[in-house]
């Protein structure tokens, strides 16, 4: 036990930046010699998710090879580089103003992500899905966590965004424009979804709590069923013909953007009003919070980002049909939000990333996957009732002046 504790404190002493640099080196090494090492070890191609899927599929025989691979490609380089970089890495960012250092971090993370996953078909898929899920989770957290309402229809807005964005890239813009027109299509999808968000926002003036949950449920069904009944866009057969425009850089950009924007929103006066509505709507109103305007803003922002995620999703999978955006998808997003933590940007990030990763890693287990995931969710909620990071944030996401009003996120 003591040994483990020593190791933990030893590893925790190394700054995050040093680990990032380590991962950067490790990804570069993998790009250069990964194939060679994998074939030497008798693995079929480089293990795409650290070999966890491989071991599940082909049995424990591959375990030694996978461990050797992970040790030489990831663990050792990361540890060595992190150890070497630990003394001087913090000096890199200490002198910079906070904004610049944030930008530096984001760029570094992007570099790591792109090097690790940008050149590998399957990892591109997983990482893009991760980005999409992060957008979905953080936007749903705005309503479910910060505003304290219970929306179970997030997938509906995602569907609106997906359909509008795909229709625009397929029918409106010429295909040759490709990536140039993509952000416009996504924004249009988001705007459409935001308008659909009004379907929930307006009833929310009068209806609260569990009854509002039904409204969101109904809106999800109405959207899904509505799309099914429009023959022009394929009805229940679905819609296709999109070009594969979503890739790691786009997913990363939009995920970062939504994390940043929603973080700023909840820290802004308008965002504080959202939290005030959660705590006590009547008190908030007496304190001059315009509850109607605030609710519209929160619901529409939330569904706007869901629409963006939908657009990205459509251009990743290249085929959408109404049943993709059913309650099952909404439930998935709910799981991500509550796994990660209520009212926490960091929580949505962790929840969505963990969930996507688990879903991919456990894929060989087929139906058992969905037995394990709910068990895990319940186990986590029993220990931490608000999710892993509920009501807490990573320190870099909150302004210094407010650090003490959040719980520490170190443990």
């Amino acid at each position, binding site marked *: 036990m003591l040994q483990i504790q020593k190791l933990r404190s030893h590893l925790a002493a190394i700054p995050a930046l040093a680990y990032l640099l380590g991962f950067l080196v490790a990804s570069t090494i993998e790009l250069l010699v990964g194939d060679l090492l994998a074939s030497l070890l008798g693995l079929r191609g480089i293990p795409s998710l650290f070999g966890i899927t491989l071991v599940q599929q082909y049995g424990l025989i591959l375990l030694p090879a996978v461990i050797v691979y992970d040790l030489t490609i990831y663990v050792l380089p990361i540890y060595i580089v992190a150890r070497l970089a630990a003394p001087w890495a913090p000096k890199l960012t200490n002198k910079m103003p906070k904004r610049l250092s944030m930008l530096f971090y984001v760029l570094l993370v992007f570099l790591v992500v792109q090097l690790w996953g940008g050149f590998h078909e399957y990892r591109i898929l997983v990482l893009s899905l991760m980005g999409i899920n992060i957008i979905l989770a953080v936007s749903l957290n705005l309503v479910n966590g910060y505003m304290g309402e219970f929306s179970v229809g997030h997938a509906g807005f995602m569907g609106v965004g997906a359909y509008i964005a795909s229709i625009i890239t397929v029918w409106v813009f010429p295909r040759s424009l490709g990536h140039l027109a993509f952000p416009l299509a996504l924004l249009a999808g988001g705007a459409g979804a935001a308008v659909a968000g009004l379907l929930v926002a307006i*009833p929310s003036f*009068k209806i609260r709590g569990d*009854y509002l*949950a*039904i409204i969101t449920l*109904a809106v999800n069904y109405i959207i899904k069923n509505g799309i099914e009944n429009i023959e022009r866009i394929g009805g229940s057969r679905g819609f296709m013909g999109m070009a594969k425009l979503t890739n790691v850089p786009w997913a990363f950009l939009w995920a970062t953007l939504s994390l940043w924007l929603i973080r700023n929103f909840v820290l802004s006066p308008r965002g504080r009003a959202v939290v005030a509505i959660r705590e006590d709507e009547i*008190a908030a109103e007496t304190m001059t919070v315009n509850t109607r305007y605030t609710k519209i803003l929160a619901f529409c922002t939330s569904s706007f980002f869901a629409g963006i995620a939908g657009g990205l999703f459509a251009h990743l999978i290249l085929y959408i049909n109404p049943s993709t955006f059913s309650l099952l998808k909404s439930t998935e997003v709910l799981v991500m939000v509550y796994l990660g933590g209520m009212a926490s940007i960091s929580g949505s990030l962790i929840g969505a990333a963990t969930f996507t990763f688990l879903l991919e890693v456990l894929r060989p287990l087929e139906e058992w996957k969905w037995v394990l995931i709910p068990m895990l969710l*319940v186990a986590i909620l029993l220990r931490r009732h608000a999710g892993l990071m509920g009501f807490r944030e990573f320190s870099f996401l909150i302004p210094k002046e407010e650090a003490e009003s959040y719980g520490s996120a170190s443990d």
Partner: protein
Amino acid sequence: MVYFLQQFINAVQLGSIYALIALGYSMVYGVLRFINFAHGDIFMVGALLAYFAAGFLIRLASQVPIPAALVFMGSMLFSMVGTTLIALLIEKVAYRPLRQHRLSVVITALGMGVLLEHVALVIVGPWRLSFPLLVTDHVYRVAGVSISTIQLLIIFVSILLMLILEFFVQKTKQGMAMRAISYDRETLPLMGVSVNQIVSLTFAVASCLAAAGGLLYGHAYPIVEPYMGIMVGWKSFISAVVGGIGSIRGAMLGGFILGFVEIGAGAVFPSRMRDLISFVVLMSVLLVRPTGIFGVARRQKV
């Protein structure tokens, strides 16, 4: 007129099943103020258990003479007991420790629903099992309207169960405790009533009704599969809300209303619009009466 009466009977049949399940949502909500999202899947478990029990009893009946009524009662009893045990286990493991945190418990309920679906999927596989009929089906024709034994049975059994429930809640001590707990949760423990016992009892009653609903549903639409609880569960939930969640009579009424709306919409509009129409009706009801028909708006103290 004949056509109308025919649809009326269909609507009552569908509505009574919705009402049975809606009661479960409503009772749990009344006692705990929490939506048991796993209830739809409890219904599915009830249907599956009834399926297995019926299969076993029918095979037994081919060797030993057992009256058909006993087979029916036996499968219903087995399904009720099994479903109750599972529901009590879920309540104990996943809901009770989190009772203070209303939102978390809703999520564990959703999780438990997914868990039940997929455990069922692992056990019975993704096939659609056809439910064995436990009664010989006659179609009676009264003044041009045809009504089958099964329809009569469904309507009779569900109305009987609702009457028993009504008696239980209104006339017995336990029922009084249930009503008291939903009236004032803080005072009840002071009166020497064990909240945990009443909660367990509520879950037991709710899952018995769901199990009966599962058996009857299996007779009306003779297919059982692991995902059958999702749609029926949500629909019953809607019924509970339309009637005013937390209110027992509201849940019964809501179930019948939804049955009528669905059958009515199916008769007038193309069938693929059916769900759309029912959800639109639901939204309109809530816009006019934000707490459902029988729901009482709790006054917020300032």
